[in-house]
């Protein structure tokens, strides 16, 4: 009996010491946070006159500038492509900006039938996410505030000069920006290196194109160089640089080529190597020096921006305002010695007071946890009534993620000769149906900021996203640059931008979304580079984390 009991005990001990093996890695998932890049630049490429209209044809993109080598397409290649209307760029980790060394580069967009668009970027340390718009002007579909005029003159092959004077009358359809250019026969044409351009046998001759911007409309302002609208960098007389919110004046982009070789300057000519221009002055324009309309005998000057230059430069000369005896039109006659953008400014010696202004925005949900940020675009307008009663608006745009601190959100600052009050117009996902808006004033240094405060009307829902790669059972935190879009299920509405993941929120499990309603059903769309993934009919539950199953191609690109 005792022996039997002992044997049974021994058997039990052996059995319990050998536990059956479970699947140890069952439901165990590797988490990956793609932190091999931090800085993302996102540029929506759109038709300047009709942003909802896609660009016809292929948009060719090139990156230039001192730090161009550090810039890659979001997929880590040098094949820069617009996908879903957006160009996404990233900075390689070994070339990130440092406190004293921002990254400077230029992005050029070219497409057949569109004016070339260039945007300048300067990425400072911790500017992890910069969003902007590249608005391309369709030369076959110009708004009334923009005019494009072309002309051609034959070249005498013996002299490399015009066989006959070439007169070009150009202007915007609304007649608020007009110019008359007269190219004399005794002018020689110089290239970018200052060398005389020699005409070719059977060549096309001198081709002239003038883009006239009345800049009274947002579209015309969007056509300004560098894509920054009326916010332009201006070099002062003493050599210092200001970022200036320009006042209204007709602006002209004058381009010439001789048999395909771009003309940059002139030599010879009766008026010391120049091309004569006649620029009318808008009757509604104000002479800021005397706070009245312009009169015959007043003085004005010119400022220009040449290709490759960073800042507008003030002309050395002032010009007398004349009056046409027949039409009573006021005008001035500058001499153009080189080709670039041109616009009228105050006379050289008049230095109006500069006001240092800025605009910004921030989002505060009113709850302490998971405040996160919201993505969107905000238009700001400075409005002023002219003497005739017309309202002239200067437009500024803010775009990006807006968190609780406006100082680290996208903001803009500039000097201005006038101190109009800005009006905010949130768009693109930040609507008055979901938010209460108010403005505040903050001073940073010499700049006085007007800041838009955005508070959701209802307590926003907090949800999180993860990307799931089934082939490797791996969860991936959305890398910087992943954009989320949404629409109400069965609404038939187009997808609207909801959120963009950036390096600042990669470690955030939840974010708040005032645009979403709790327990409602939505369709979501994730976009990254050329990958798009729809997840339909999802109920939004506060506090839930959603796993979006990624296509194998997207996972393979991450080595998963």
């Amino acid at each position, binding site marked *: 009996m*005792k022996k039997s009991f*002992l044997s049974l*005990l*021994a058997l039990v*001990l*052996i059995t*319990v*010491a*050998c*536990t*059956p093996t*479970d*699947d*140890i*890695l*069952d*439901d*165990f*998932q*590797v*988490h*990956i*946070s*793609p*932190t*091999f*890049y931090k800085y993302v630049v996102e540029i929506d490429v759109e038709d300047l006159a009709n942003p909802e209209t896609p660009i016809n044809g292929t948009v060719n993109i090139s990156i230039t500038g001192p730090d161009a080598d550090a810039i*890659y*397409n979001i*997929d*880590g*290649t*040098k094949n820069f492509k617009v996908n879903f209307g957006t160009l996404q760029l990233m900075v*390689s*980790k070994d070339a990130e900006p440092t406190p004293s060394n921002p990254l400077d580069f230029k992005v050029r967009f070219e497409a057949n039938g569109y004016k070339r668009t260039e945007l300048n970027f300067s990425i400072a340390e911790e500017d992890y996410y910069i969003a902007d718009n590249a608005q391309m002007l369709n030369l076959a579909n110009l708004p009334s505030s923009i005019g494009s005029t072309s002309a051609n003159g034959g070249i005498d092959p013996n002299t490399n000069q015009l066989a006959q004077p070439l007169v070009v009358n150009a202007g915007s359809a609304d007649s608020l920006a007009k110019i008359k250019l007269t190219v004399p026969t005794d002018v020689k044409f110089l290239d970018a290196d200052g060398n005389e351009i020699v005409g070719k046998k059977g060549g096309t001759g001198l081709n002239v194109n003038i883009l006239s911007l009345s800049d009274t409309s947002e579209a015309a302002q969007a056509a300004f160089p560098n894509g920054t609208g009326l916010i332009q960098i201006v070099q002062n007389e003493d050599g210092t640089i200001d970022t200036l919110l320009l006042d209204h004046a007709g602006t002209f982009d004058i381009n010439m080529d001789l048999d395909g070789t771009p003309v940059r300057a002139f030599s010879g000519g009766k008026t010391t190597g120049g091309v004569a221009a006649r620029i009318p002055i808008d009757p509604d324009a104000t002479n800021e020096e005397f706070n009245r309309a312009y009169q015959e005998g007043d003085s004005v000057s010119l400022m220009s921006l040449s290709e490759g230059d960073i800042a507008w430069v003030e002309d050395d000369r002032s010009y007398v305002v004349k009056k046409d005896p027949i039409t009573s039109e006021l005008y001035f006659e500058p001499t153009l010695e080189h080709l670039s953008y041109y616009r009228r400014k105050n006379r050289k010696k008049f230095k109006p007071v500069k006001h240092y202004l800025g605009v910004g925005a921030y989002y505060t949900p009113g709850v302490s946890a998971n405040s996160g940020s919201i993505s969107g675009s905000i238009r700001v307008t400075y409005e002023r009534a002219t003497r005739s009663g017309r309202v002239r608006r200067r437009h500024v745009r803010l775009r990006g993620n807006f968190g609780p601190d406006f100082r680290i959100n996208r903001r803009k600052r500039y000097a201005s000769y006038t101190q109009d009050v800005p009006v905010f117009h949130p768009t693109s996902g930040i609507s008055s149906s979901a938010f209460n808006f108010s403005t505040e004033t903050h001073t940073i240094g010499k700049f006085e900021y007007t800041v838009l405060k955005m508070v959701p009307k209802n307590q926003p829902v907090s949800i999180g996203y993860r990307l799931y790669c089934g*082939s*490797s*059972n791996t*969860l991936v*935190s959305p890398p910087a640059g992943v954009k989320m879009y949404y629409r109400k299920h069965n609404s038939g509405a187009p997808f609207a931008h909801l959120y963009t993941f950036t390096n600042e929120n990669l470690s955030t499990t939840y974010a708040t979304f005032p645009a979403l309603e709790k327990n409602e059903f939505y369709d979501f769309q994730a976009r990254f580079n050329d990958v798009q993934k729809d997840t339909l009919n999802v109920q939004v539950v506060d506090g839930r984390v959603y796993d979006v199953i990624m296509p194998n191609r997207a996972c393979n*690109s*991450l*080595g998963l």
Partner: protein
Amino acid sequence: MSKSILSIVLGLVFMAPTVAQDSTAAKKAATDELYPLWQNRHAIAISGGLPGFGLEYAYNLNRSLNLRAGFLAFTFNDFNTDMDISGQSVNVNANLTSTVFDLMLEYQPSTQSSFKLVAGLGYLNNVGLNTLILLNDDIGYGDLVIDNEEIGDIDLTVSWTGIAPYMGFGFGRAVPKKRVGFGIEVGTYYAGGPNVDIDASGMLENTSEEEAELENNLASYAWMPRLMARLAIKL
């Protein structure tokens, strides 16, 4: 007649203890004759096996019970190998440690056999396995190369710590009858589910969130086997 029967019964009754005493004394004498050295009750032993190698001290309480205390330890460091996980070549560096302090009671049902049942308590001091997993190769992302150090590594530790009851059986007395004795023992600790610690770095950092999941998956690994051989020397 009845007086005679009563006398005989009474006599038998009073004689029984005398007879029993005589039997117990005889047995003791026989046992003493067989095991003259049990009068020395202390012994030390060296032991080896699972979960380690070590030393013991034993004290014989009586012919059936021995009390022993021991220390076992084992370390195996830097086991290095390459493996393929989900198509990725990874390097695995493993370290195994075991430190156990025991207090056991042996029960021998028969003095004529060295079979024993053992029960007691062990203190497990971080008994477990540590592995460091690192990708062998860099990963390409477009024209960029992400080196494996930037990807990061996963440092995984599975360990048992604390007091664990033990039971087992074997052969061989803790305090041998003769000068030297050999024994074997099989048993198991009940250690409870292990603690899991995941320390991940680089891009894998958030894998640390899977600690609870892995701990849950390993919860059934509560029994820790023990298989020992020992050589005891009576003092």
